[in-house]
Every structure is written in C-alpha cells, then in structure tokens.
C-alpha cells in the first residue's frame, strides 16, 4: 500500500501558483489605487440622531445647502428623505469648474444611496450616520446625483444635479 499523501499534479501546481500570483497582483493594484492614488472609500465621519437631524437648529441638516468655506472649496450638506416625498435637499447646486466639494449626506428616514454620475462618488446614506466624500469638478457640465438604494415607491425618481459652470 502506498502511503497517504497529497497528490498534486504538476499542471495543477502551476495553475495554483498562477492563481496566487494573479490574485496578489489584483490585491496590489487595488492597494496602489487606494493608498498611492488616494481613491478611498467612505470612513466613519459622524453619528447623528435621525429623529432630530432635520429639525434641530444646531444640526447643519436643518438648513441643508452649499457653503463656500474658502475660495473654490465648498461643503455641501445634503439631506436625503422619503417623507413627505422622495428627494434630496437641496436638489440642485451650482459651483464653478475647478471647485472641490465635500459632501456630507445623511438621511432623515430610511436608507438611501448617493451616486454622482461620471465621478467616483457613490455611497450609502444611512439614518444615524453621515457619509462624507470629497470630489473636485474640473469639467463643466450637469452632474446628476441619483439614489442607489431602495427607499420606497419613489426611489426611482429621487435625484438632483450639480451644475458646474465654466
């Protein structure tokens, strides 16, 4: 009787090595993009009370909108909601080309999404949490932002736009 051992065919060994190398390369590419090029995913920013975030006068989302904090630099406080209707507040903002905008988005009710078309901005919007992402708009044009998480019957009509002027 031959002994118990793990029999691995030569082709199979090569395939497994090839697989490991490929996966390592993918991992490396992703890491370079994340840490070298700074293409980062959202990080915990702030927690809020969803029951009062839209009404508490101390909450920036009681008065959502665009604030210029330095020349060409903006903070955009955006409230996503399904009640009384499916919308973002504000649903339209205008900035000049070259502006850097930090989005601070939260929800007053259910889960929503926030995806700015033709950019890397795409994140979940949860009640109780603030989602933040910073984007620089170099090219003039109209950038729709749309809701990407099911938030009730009006989910498909929930959108707004950032207008980047020349």
């Amino acid at each position, binding site marked *: 009787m031959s002994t118990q051992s793990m029999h691995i065919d030569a082709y*199979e060994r090569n395939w497994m090595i090839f697989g490991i190398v490929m996966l390592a390369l993918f991992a490396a590419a992703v890491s370079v993009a994340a840490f070298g090029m700074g293409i*980062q995913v*959202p990080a915990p920013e702030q927690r809020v009370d969803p029951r009062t975030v839209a009404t508490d006068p101390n909450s920036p989302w009681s008065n959502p909108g665009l604030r210029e904090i330095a020349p060409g630099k903006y903070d955009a406080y955006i409230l996503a909601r399904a009640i009384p209707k499916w919308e973002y507040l504000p649903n339209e903002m205008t900035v000049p080309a070259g502006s850097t905008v930090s989005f601070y988005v939260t929800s007053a009710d259910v889960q929503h999404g926030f995806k700015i078309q033709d950019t890397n901005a795409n994140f979940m919007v949860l009640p109780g949490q603030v989602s933040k992402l910073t984007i620089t708009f170099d090219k003039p044009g109209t950038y729709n932002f749309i809701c990407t998480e099911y938030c009730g019957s009006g989910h498909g009509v929930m959108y707004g736009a950032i207008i980047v002027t020349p």
Partner: protein
Amino acid sequence: MTQYQLSTGEKKFIGWHLLAAILAFAVGSFFGPLQAFEHAGWDLYPYLKPLIKSYYQGLTIHGVLNALVWTTFFIMGFLTFNVIFGLKRPLKNMTLNKVGFWMMVVGVLTAAVPILANEATVLFTFYPPLKANPFFYIGLTLVVVGSWVEGWGFFMTYAAWRKEHPNERTPFIAFGSLVTTLLWQICTLGVAVEILTMLLPWSLGLIEGVDPQLARTYFWFTGHPLVYFWLLPAYISWYAMLPKQAGGGKMFSDSLARLAFWLFLVLSTPLGFHHQYVDPGVPPVWKFIHAMLTFSVFFPSLMTAFTVIASLEYAGRKQGGTGTLRWIGKLNWSNPSVAAQLLAGILFFFGGIGGLANASYNVNLVLHNTAFVPGHFHLTVATAVTLSFMGISYWLVPYLTGKKLWQPKWATIQAWVWFIGMIIFSNSMHVLGLLGAPRRVPLGLAPYIPAEWNSRLFQVGVGGAILFVSGVLYLVVMYKTATNKQTVESEVEVPIAEAMQDPALSPVWLDRWSPWVYGALALIVIVYGPQLFDMIKNIALTSPGFRVW
C-alpha cells in the same frame, strides 16, 4: 455493480423539497421577465392590479422566492440525497428532518401572507428602517431554523456513520454536503441575531428603534457566505457527478477537492464588509482587510475550475476526444443534465470575473448598487446555480419518481435557451451598470435616463423574453415528467465519478473536522470581532420604522 438504494419514503421526502423549490421558482421567476420588460419600456404592472400592487412588491417576491426559497429548498433536498446516498445509510432520525422541512414550509407560507398583502415590500434584503409586518420576520426565521434542524439531522447521521466506519474517509458527496451545511449554520447566525435582537421586537412594538448600520453588518455576515451555500451544492455536482455523466470521467483530484471545500468553510464568512465598502459606519481598514480575504476566497474557486475541467477533459478524451479543446465536443452534450451544467459552468466563468471587479475595494465605487450587480448575480446564482440545479433535476426527478424524463431533447433546448437569454440579459445589465444605471429602479419610468441607455434597456427586455421561454419550458418538462405515464425501465443510475486516486490515500487531516471548524471561527472572531464589538457597544436604536411603499 448495483448501487445503494434509497427507500420510497426517503425519495418522497426529497421529492417534496424539489416540489416546493420548483413552485417557488415558478412564481418568483414569473416576475423576472416583467422587470426586464419594464426596463425596456413595456410596463405590464398595471395589468397585475389589484393582485400585485407595484414593481417593488413583485421585486420582493422575485428576490425572496428565487434567491431564498428556490435555492434553499432545492439545496436541502439535494443535500439530503447526498448524505443518505453518500453514507449509504438512512438518516439517523427521519422525524427530525421532517420537522425541519415542515418548519421551512410553514415559514415560507407565514412570510408569504404579508408579502402578498403588500405589507412587506422591503425586498429580499429587508434593510431597516423599512419596517415589514412581524410575520415576515417570523416566517424568515422559521425557514432558517427549519434548515438548521434538517442540518442537525445530517450531523447526527454523520456521527452514526462515523461510529460504524471509524477508519473510512467520508465519501465525497456526503463530505461536501456536510461542509455546506456547517457553513450555513455558522453564517446564518448573522441574520438570526439581526432578526431576533432588533427587527422582530421592533416590528412587534417592543422596542422603538433600530440601528441600521449594525443591521446591515449582521445581514452581510450572512449575505456573502449565502452565495457559497448556493454554490457549493452545484460544485458537488460538478466535481463528483458531472464528469461521470459527461463521458464516464473520474474526479481528477479527490484531496484537492476536499481542501477546496475546507477553504470555503474557513474563508467565506469573514469577508462580508465587501458588501459594505461604501457604508459610512465601517472603518476603511476593516473594509480593506475584508477585500484581501475576498481575493483569497477566489483561490478555492480557481482550484475547483482546474479539477472540474481536468476531470471533464479526462471524460472527453475517454470518449475519443483529441486536441487542446476539441475534446469538449465529445462530452455528452445530448444529455440535458450535462448540457445544462456545462453551460452553467461557462457563464460562471464570466460571473467570476465580474465578481472580482465588484470585490476590488475602490473599483466598487463605480459599481456599487448599479445594474452591474444584478447583471453579475444572474450569471452566478441565477445561472451557475440555477441552471445547474435544473440540470441535476433532469436526472434526480426521474430517479425519485421512477418516471422517465419527458422529451430530453426539449430539456436540452431549455438549457441552451437559458444560456442565450442570459448572455443577452446579463451583458446589457453589466453595460448599463458601467454607464451608471442604478439597480432596484423601474428604469422604464426613471426621469434621468440618458438616450445612450435606451438600446441596452431594450436588450434587457429581449433577454428577459428569452429567459421567460426557457423558464416555462423547464416547468413544462418538470410537470410532464412528474405526470409521465412512461416509467423508467430499471432504476435510474446515480452518476458518481470515482476519484482517480483512492480517497483512502488522501491525508487524514482532510477528514478531520475540528482544526477547520476552529480555524473558521477564529478567523471570524479576528476580522469581525473588534468592529462588531465596537458597533454593539455604541449601538443607537434611534431609527423608527417606515412604510414607504
């Protein structure tokens, strides 16, 4: 050589699982084409009123019945078969397994009531604070617990077998089924905790609010391994049955197949944050660690690809096939079970590539919740898994019922039609996603559709129509088979591909449970523990429920 025989009672019991699965598929899949037609601008929902009130009620039915019910019932039936046939002994306690099965049935019916009443239009992910009727959560819990009970029945049967055969290697199909069952029992703890500690008491009015971020984390603890729960039964068939059906082939490497299953057990749970890359409340460092683990779980799938293809090549060459690829033509394509599973495997290759893209951390920023995602998982769960299960049913149903498969030619055509429809459907969904189209949106009505999406949306409808034909064909073949007057001449042979190397020679550590189980649990504690602990410590039950549909 005569094969081990299942008793009539056992066959009936497995048959009940398949019947429930196929009924769920029939109802659930009916909505798929409706969704696809809606995307193409052909909105049929007004005709469904008052029975179905909205696109989203239909989508909830589609997701729940297809992804959760069709799969789980088929899998529990198939695993029951594998455990009994593989171990060549009856279940240790048939009553226990029956209790589990009927719990699942009662669970589905319980959840169906609020879904049909439009009181649970929360989709199959039921993200709070969307708040469903309590019976929805109770029903889901019963389904999960019922599947646990059936699994305990498998473990007891295995323990009894082990006592009777202390020195034997666990036969492969039973081994794979037990690993699948264990994986399921570990990972479903996530939704169990989510429902029992938050959603159910909340829907009953016992607590005021929930923590949506924590709920998502519990959900995806279960949600990713769920896909391996779907996939591993198909892998069992691809490894250990398909090569035999395709041309008298053998399993290329028994020990590597076992190693792959163990790796799935260890690696498939601790990576759920890859569904939460863009969640605000999870630190990027954990997301990154889960991304790396996600790459690692591709490794056992690559091993599977090698072993399955090598086993098939052996079968093809045995049938006189030559050349680098020409042996593929020699496989037994006229057998519908073979055709369905081979086509499923081919599309799974593309599903895997799309999965790598989804998994790639920041690449996910472009893809998250776009139509790319349903494009991807209709290649995986709705084809690799579903078409394989259809293929399995083409021999298993005749085996269980003693009825001849009705018109095998039509069954083969069914598989090809699914394949073609899915290529068109899935390709257009992938492209739409890359163009920025969101998922879970009745895109035919959305106000922000640029003109360049239109031709792709039309293709979604075309693919959906072709898939509809295939789905109906499957149901016809199943119905005609179950009611066939022609019975099989002799007992249907169960296709089992022997391993090329005697499994008794594979290392003992591949048949030991504890190192792998402890390893799996330890890894979960390491990569989920700290963040979960932090989230639970800072839990904020501040979100009241909403019914916004």
